[in-house]
């Protein structure tokens, strides 16, 4: 009985609603026609530009890239091989060139290794702990990016140069920092410091601390937690940072130029040697070394693209 009365009331409600809807449909009808008139005149996808504009924009972008990126790259290789393949390899086999390549590799190895450690430590501190001065530390990490490399080099001259703060002490103890490998390494470390930390901080912040907490509650020690949980989670980001850090370490000119002293065969890195040879009108030799740096750039670019793809995969949120 009670159910029936319930049904009855709901049907009467439906009926009373019905005329109301009829009216509302009838009223806006003329307005609909006005609205329809517009799309006919401009019937195109609103998310894209008309053909000619699209063409101009794409052509501009390609032209710009060709002139400013592809053309210089072609010129580097063309000049390097302008006297033939034999001259190219002869230039690379020069003792001075070999010394520069060796020095560059050594400095890159030192600075990348140290920045790997510093970067992980800094990123770890920033993303996993709360402490006073955190914002300041984040700003400080970016400092090398915002300072001109020449100034970065000058800082070390002021510190370790003959007239610098530690200059006399260093001289008295016969320690060579400036115009030697340590100075070049220091300048490079300074300039390339942000790469690893910058690559890791957002990644580690996004991943949070829960997996580490889980590991610790399962009995893992700090080191076990780092090597078994944290490191695997950040490995692609870490490689990405190392890659960029390495590219910059090998290619750094300004800061290294200030502290190197340009001692031939001893303190010239590849970028410095490129400039010296060019100034001496040894174009083939100069561009041969430059071509090595250009190749490094190309390899870095490819590796970077692959790593970015990996990073995207690693960051796929494990949706609930």
């Amino acid at each position, binding site marked *: 009985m*009670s159910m029936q*009365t*319930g049904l009855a009331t709901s049907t009467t409600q439906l009926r009373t609603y019905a005329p109301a809807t009829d009216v509302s449909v009838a009223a806006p009808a003329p307005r609909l026609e006005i609205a329809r008139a517009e799309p006919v005149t401009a019937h195109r996808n609103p998310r894209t530009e008309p053909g000619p504009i699209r063409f101009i924009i794409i052509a501009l972008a390609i032209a710009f890239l060709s002139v400013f990126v592809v053309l210089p790259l072609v010129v580097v290789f063309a000049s390097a091989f302008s006297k033939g393949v034999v001259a190219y390899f002869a230039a690379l086999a020069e003792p001075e060139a070999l010394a520069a390549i060796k020095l560059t590799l050594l400095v890159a190895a030192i600075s990348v290794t140290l920045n790997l450690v510093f970067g992980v430590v800094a990123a770890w501190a920033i993303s996993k702990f709360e402490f006073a001065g955190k914002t300041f530390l984040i700003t400080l990490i970016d400092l090398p990016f915002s300072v001109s490399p020449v100034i970065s080099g000058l800082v070390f001259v002021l510190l370790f140069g003959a007239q610098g703060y530690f200059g006399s002490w260093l001289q008295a103890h016969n320690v060579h920092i400036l115009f030697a490998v340590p100075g070049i390494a220091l300048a490079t470390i300074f300039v390339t410091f942000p790469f690893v930390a910058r690559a890791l901080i957002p990644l580690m912040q996004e991943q949070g601390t*829960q*997996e580490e*907490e*889980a*590991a*610790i*509650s*399962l*009995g*893992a*020690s700090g080191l*076990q937690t780092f090597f*078994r*949980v944290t490191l*695997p*989670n950040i490995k692609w980001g870490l490689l990405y940072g190392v890659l960029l850090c390495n590219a910059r370490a090998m290619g750094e000119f300004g800061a290294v130029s200030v502290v190197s002293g340009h001692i031939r065969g001893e303190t010239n890195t590849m970028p410095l040697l490129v400039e010296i040879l060019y100034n001496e009108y040894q174009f083939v030799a100069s561009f041969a070394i430059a071509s090595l740096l250009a190749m490094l750039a190309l390899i870095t670019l490819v590796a970077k693209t692959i790593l970015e793809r990996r990073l995207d995969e690693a960051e*796929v949120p*494990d949706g*609930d």
Partner: protein
Amino acid sequence: MAIEVKNIVKRFGSFAALDNVDLKVADGELLALLGPSGSGKTTLLRIIAGLDWPDSGEVAIDGENALSRGASERQVGFVFQHYALFRHMTVFENVAFGLRVQPRAIRKDEATIRARVKNLLDLVQLDWLANRYPSQLSGGQRQRIALARALAIEPRILLLDEPFGALDAKVRKELRQWLRSLHNEIHVTSIFVTHDQEEALEVANRVVVMDKGKIEQIGSPGEVYDNPATAFVHGFIGESIVLPVDVAGDAVRLDGRPLNIPALGAASGAAKLFVRRHDMAVGPAGTGALEGAIRHVRSFGPIQRAEVALAGSEGRTVIEIDAPRDRELQAGEIVSLQPRRYRIFAAQE
């Protein structure tokens, strides 16, 4: 293992997350920490686990001081709201983790570890997922794996932080019953944190209701529901009708009109009358303590929920009551309401 928490104080800046909390958990109990967000329940759980440290107070697990040990030494199973599975490891390796990181002296051999992981995966009924990665699992499956992982270290106690909070309603219900029966099977002392009263009442042996860093009431699900100790508990657990009243001696007045119900020992002054929706008996006009006009009725299942505008309040006080469907109520009807069971708490402030 029994857990004893004494005088725990924890502040975050000027905010007191835990304000002198005492709690005893008996061996084998399944206890719920229930409270709104910010009540300190998760902080308390994390302190017991060793993932947070109190400013002062004591925590003892099985009679021994837990605060002198780090989280990794407490042998406490912890299950996180968002699972916290190791994303780069398979399900199998996730569960095996706690066994693989044991000090070499007590670490079991590979065959034993494999057998134990297999057992745990069987226990959570997910052995067929052993080689998948966490991102390939559903939320419910992930949480069961997280539980298996926590059980792998043979924890002395099991702590679950909003274990079903991130799951949808249906999976939640299934997992609740599953957790209940799992606990019956393995009997490890367990504490779980929830803000969902239904979950707490349905799963736990005992419920601890918390608010603003303090424990409001500890009792069985029946006790906290039927005999709430404070206004907060009454308002937080179950749906309640709350009416501002005045108590003078044994008389209770609403808007100056006597209600003809005893004050049940409440102190004189401003107070709040708490009645469960289903404890409000509906009768013909003129027979009860309150009177009002029904504005709207919705019927579903065994009950009908009616909105009643109380008389004498110019229709401003509207309450919702649940009545059985033995007599269909009609909108517009004038009815009287009589609280069958109620509590009166002195108004705070």
